[in-house]
């Protein structure tokens, strides 16, 4: 049974993605990421000298500032900042620049569903634009459960409000390596099957959660190819970013 979506997408279809790097001039790295109508701009400054008081000076510190579209920053913004910080900490190589702070500023331009995954993707592209050393990229996707028990991908705002539950999933991007099984871990499982972050809202059964993860992983694999290609294109073209 097919689920009828308002904008005519199939349940497994993401919205069209537009990724632009180098949007801002003052920032060391910047990116704008749009999934359908949801648009987020991310800017990176860093590494700057010194860490904050409670942070470990032997590692680099990641600071996230989330700016909502309208209104004051409140508790939901703090939660987003925390999730983003933990996610980005796990993909950055923190030992390369100890005792430094890298600041990531997120500005919400429009919110039409799946805001946090959009922000994570934007932040990741901005980090690449700034040249911050990363272990791998993070690819974020949103899956949700409809009342009838189906799983759909990349909901819009209206769909999100009518959902039983939804989950934001962040996966590492797929690794292209020279060795045939270079990407496999000792257990035999591929690296890109790990989950970096999972944020759930609402109630869903365990089996439903795992089917969301399966769907999300497949979508993330395609999205990671897109991200890799888009980041490759820019590297050779812009002489101002070289050196």
């Amino acid at each position, binding site marked *: *049974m*097919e689920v009828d*979506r*308002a*904008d*005519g*997408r*199939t*349940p*497994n*279809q*993401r919205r*069209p*993605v*537009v*990724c*632009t*790097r*180098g*949007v*801002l*001039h*003052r*920032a060391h790295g*910047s990116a704008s990421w749009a999934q359908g*109508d949801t*648009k987020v*701009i991310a*800017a990176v*400054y860093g590494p*700057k*000298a*010194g860490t904050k008081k409670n942070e470990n000076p032997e590692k680099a510190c990641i600071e996230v*500032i989330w*700016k909502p*579209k*309208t*209104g004051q920053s409140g508790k939901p913004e703090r939660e987003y900042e925390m999730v983003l910080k933990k996610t980005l900490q796990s993909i950055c190589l923190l030992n390369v620049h100890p005792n430094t702070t890298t*600041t990531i*500023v997120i*500005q919400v*331009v*429009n919110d*039409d569903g799946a805001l946090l995954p959009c922000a994570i993707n934007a932040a990741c592209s901005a980090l690449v634009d700034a040249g911050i050393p990363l272990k791998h990229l993070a690819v974020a996707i949103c899956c949700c459960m409809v009342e009838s028990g189906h*799983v759909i*991908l990349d909901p819009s705002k209206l769909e999100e409000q009518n959902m039983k539950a939804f989950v934001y999933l962040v996966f590492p991007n797929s690794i292209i390596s020279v060795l045939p099984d270079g990407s496999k871990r000792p257990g035999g499982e591929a690296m890109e099957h790990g989950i970096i972050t999972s944020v759930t809202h609402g109630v869903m059964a365990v089996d439903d959660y795992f*089917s969301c993860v*399966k*769907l999300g992983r*497949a*979508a993330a694999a*395609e*999205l990671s190819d*897109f991200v890799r*290609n*888009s980041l490759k*294109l*820019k590297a050779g*073209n*812009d002489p101002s970013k070289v050196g």
Partner: protein
Amino acid sequence: MEQRLANTLIMTVNEKKFIENALVSDIRVDGRRPFDYRNLTIRFGSEDGSSEVQLGKTQVLAFVTGQLVQPYRDRPNEGSFAIYTEFSPMADPSFEPGRPGDSAIELGRIVDRGLRESRAVDTESLCVIAGKVVWSIRIDLHIIDNGGNLVDAANIAALAALSTFRRPECTVGGEDGQELTIHPPDVREPLPLILHHFPVAVTFGFIGKENIVKAGGDGVLQSVIMQCLRIASVKAGDITSKIKNAVESYNTQRSLRKIKRHNPSSAVSNVAKHHTVREPNSQSVDTNALRASQPSCATPVDKLNEESTQVNPETKSTQQSSDMNSSASTHEVTDIGSPEKQSNTLKDAVKPKHKRRKKSTSNVNAN
């Protein structure tokens, strides 16, 4: 302390001397003449009342939202508006997050006074029920890239956003005239704000003998001020026409979008299903032209060019997923455009047909 010093821009003596010497021969650092403006691009977001202005390297976002509130006691017939300025840390490393600093407050006050004291926004039209319910308009300005002259860019962004903002239509009804119904945008067309005129800010910098001085710091001769006023009025007319052109093109795009939603649905009820597939494609060509004609920004923009792959998802296996990547080429945009329009057309097509069939079958059964 050291971190704060590292964030601020320290200018060397050589740089200062260079700027002053160049100005003697009427050349500015980026090659402009003394009274030239940088390239101005005004773009609008997908929602009403959101604008993005780029003035050279300076970028400002403006969002306008409205809320129904109780009016002030001494002005029961008027709505209100308020401006909130955010110097985002992404604009400049020296901007601290948290409470706005002096320059942020000053910028907010300049934009606010320009709109309020000149009565550019018509507040009486914002009244719904006198003394009880009025519209309160909130303008959020986000400075996202500091390339200088934030006041002018922020002002233009606020004006552009105000010009494209639409508020839902409210009707007062009921027995005692106190019942308020707010009509959703798809039922009744939302109304634009009434702007009497555009107050445009033009900033002048005075470079003195030793230091670079902000306008108003040192004493300035009256004749110089008169000259500035004359130049400013010319520039203001220029900027106003640019804003109006941008707003007009946005409004035509908006009305075209609405027309496209309605036209296929009205034509479909008489046309067989296989014809509906063609119509959205032929109309979507116009949207491509419109999207391509949107003002391009001066900075190099990197958009992905990739073939869109469509994998038909099997109903049982959840591992296959189809994705669509948007790109500058027209082929992909048509693919994105058609499913959206098809959903409207097919839904509108299906319902009346089923009703007709059911009626005919019931008639047959009755007979």
